[in-house]
């Protein structure tokens, strides 16, 4: 019985192939759009999450909160910049058992030259070797610089993969000398690729010993950041309060509400990024839902046309004794078949399409979106198909037969 109804519905659809195909295309595009756009949104937030965790989940960044404002504007105390003394205090403090390592950071930018090739490096970082472990930066070729290099302020550097590519091309950069801002640096190693975090290319970087960079670029004043590694990801918040305590001591601040520095963890960065990504995904989903709705309206329209066109046939069928339910069932079966086929193909296209990289984002399918889009498309087919079908089935035979 069911088989027969399906065959009849398939026959009805096959009677007008182009029209059925176009209607199905509408549903297909709707479903595929929902799946793909949500996958792209999900993929981009996944990528952000991955690249942020790749920076190290147990690392904390201390930075100065900048110019004085609010409560401090009246007092004599001005904002103290972060200094090497602060970093040393953190590294040696007895009251900070959760701090594993400390790396002071200065940063600058400048132009690097290698055998006539010029390239402006996004960031030149002066720091201690601990920085590599804290920020999850591993060398792919060559080696890190050592504490000894830092003590002797040697002109050595570890460069990011983008920088290596831009300056050296296919040449192995290890042990080559590159001139940055007039100072010759010997390349010790090349970092493994990290991927970009939104706008910043984390691979476009030159990392050198702190005193060398201070000497050549920034001078021996304040630090830009202090990067701290907690003993484990679980104790980052404990480490965070220890840092606050120690730095309040060195900066001579009594009130914790008027600190002149900021301690941020990767986690806080992550949640901020994720919330913007959620908005992005919701927007994409809304666009996709609209296209799904348009596909549903397409089904209604086609079913209305089909029913109108076949009103005489409905009259004939009723005249030879077709019960209302059978006629209703026939048209419902057609619209359902149309939407199930369209939605099925849409799922196929969506799943296949998500294997390709779209605008630099690798889509990650949300399983619920597949089930949801399919279900909604079929429900739309049933719902919007039932109106014309019901109208057709309720006609009196003679009215239907007289229909022109």
């Amino acid at each position: 019985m069911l088989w027969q109804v399906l065959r009849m519905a398939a026959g009805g659809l096959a009677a007008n192939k182009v029209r059925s195909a176009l209607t199905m295309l509408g549903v297909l595009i709707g479903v595929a759009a929902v799946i793909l756009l949500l996958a792209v949104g999900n993929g981009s937030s996944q990528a952000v999450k991955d690249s942020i965790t790749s920076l190290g989940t147990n690392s904390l960044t201390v930075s100065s909160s900048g110019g004085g404002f609010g409560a401090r504007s009246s007092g004599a105390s001005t904002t103290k910049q972060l200094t090497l003394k602060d970093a040393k205090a953190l590294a040696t403090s007895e009251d900070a058992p959760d701090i594993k390592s400390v790396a002071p950071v200065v940063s600058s930018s400048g132009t690097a030259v290698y055998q006539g090739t010029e390239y402006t490096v996004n960031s030149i970082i002066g720091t201690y070797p601990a920085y590599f472990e804290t920020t999850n930066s591993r060398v792919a070729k060559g080696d890190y610089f050592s504490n000894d290099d830092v003590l002797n302020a040697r002109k050595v550097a570890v460069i990011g993969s983008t920088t290596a590519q831009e300056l050296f091309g296919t040449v192995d950069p290890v042990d080559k000398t590159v001139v940055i801002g007039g100072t010759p640096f010997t390349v010790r190693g090349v970092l493994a690729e990290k991927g970009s975090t939104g706008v910043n290319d984390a691979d476009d970087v030159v990392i050198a010993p702190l005193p060398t960079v201070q000497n050549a670029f920034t001078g021996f004043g304040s630090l830009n950041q202090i990067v701290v590694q907690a003993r484990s990801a679980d104790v980052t918040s404990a480490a965070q309060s220890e840092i606050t305590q120690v730095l309040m001591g060195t900066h001579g601040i009594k009130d914790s509400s008027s600190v002149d520095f900021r301690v941020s963890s990767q986690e806080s960065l992550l949640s901020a990024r994720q919330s913007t990504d959620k908005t992005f995904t919701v927007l994409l989903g809304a666009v996709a839902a609209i296209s799904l709705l348009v596909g549903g309206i397409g089904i209604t329209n086609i079913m209305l046309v089909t029913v109108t066109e076949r009103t005489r046939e409905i009259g004939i069928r009723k005249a030879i004794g077709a019960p209302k339910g059978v006629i209703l069932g026939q048209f419902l079966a057609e619209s359902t078949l149309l939407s199930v086929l369209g939605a099925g193909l849409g799922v196929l296209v969506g799943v296949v399409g998500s294997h390709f990289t779209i605008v630099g984002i690798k889509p990650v399918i949300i399983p619920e979106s597949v089930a949801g889009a399919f279900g909604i498309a079929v429900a739309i087919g049933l719902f919007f198909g039932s109106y014309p079908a019901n109208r057709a089935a309720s006609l009196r035979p003679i009215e239907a037969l007289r229909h022109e």
Partner: protein
Amino acid sequence: MSPRLPVARRLTRQVRPVPAEAAGSPSRTVPVISVRGVRKSYGVGEAAVHALRGPDDPAGGGPLGVSVDVEQGDFVAVMGSSGSGKSTLMNILGCLDVPTSGRYLLDGIDVGHLDEHQLSLVRNRKIGFIFQSFNLVPRTTALAQVELPLAYAGVRAAERRRRAVAALSMVGLGDRLDHRPNELSGGQQQRVAVARALVTSPAMLLADEPTGNLDSRSTDEVLAMVDRLNAAGRTVVLITHEDEVARHAKRVLRLVDGRIVSDVRQGPVAGPPPVFAGAEPVVGAVASGGGR
């Protein structure tokens, strides 16, 4: 329908045909068709068209409506000029349309009290309807076409096919099973329609100008089939414009402006129709299962 005893039938025959417009004449058996004061009008007020009106009330009221009875096994031809209300009457008899007022009793059951589903059962089981314009389902083979009423009746596939093939063979289309309507001549299409009307073995065959679109040879073929069905005991009501066709009937009704103006009996209700030519007993194959 309960099968009637031959005795009962003979009795009925002796009762003179009810004067068409005289309602409620005493009869010992229930007529298959009993139309009581049926009126049908389209539109309202001054512009209303009274397609069926019957005689005017002598007391000065409005039209009384059409009343007519048809006995089991009768063969009635309905004649009249164009627009006289023949099709309107036929559509009401076939439960395809509802009268504006009045009652229609089919086998003693008031059709007006049936719901949508029961009506579809009546159309399917009791009535075989043949249209002037064939009204075959488009893009459907002759076989599937004839199987349709059986499918709606819930007959199983194998049995359905057997009976449809038998019906098509009976109308001489045993070799055209897989042809679609657009691959058949007008006469062949009408024969498919006849096969479709009789495949469920309905007790009543209603035909609205079944030969109106056919040449004389196809007309003869279709009429011969109708004759055979009537000879096998089916009640037939047929609309026609041609006297030639009306000769086949046992009783002729004439309509003018929605009124029955004459009711002539040409042959007895029992027995074969007047012009029944063939003595071939082919009818049995499909028709013998009838009388339900």
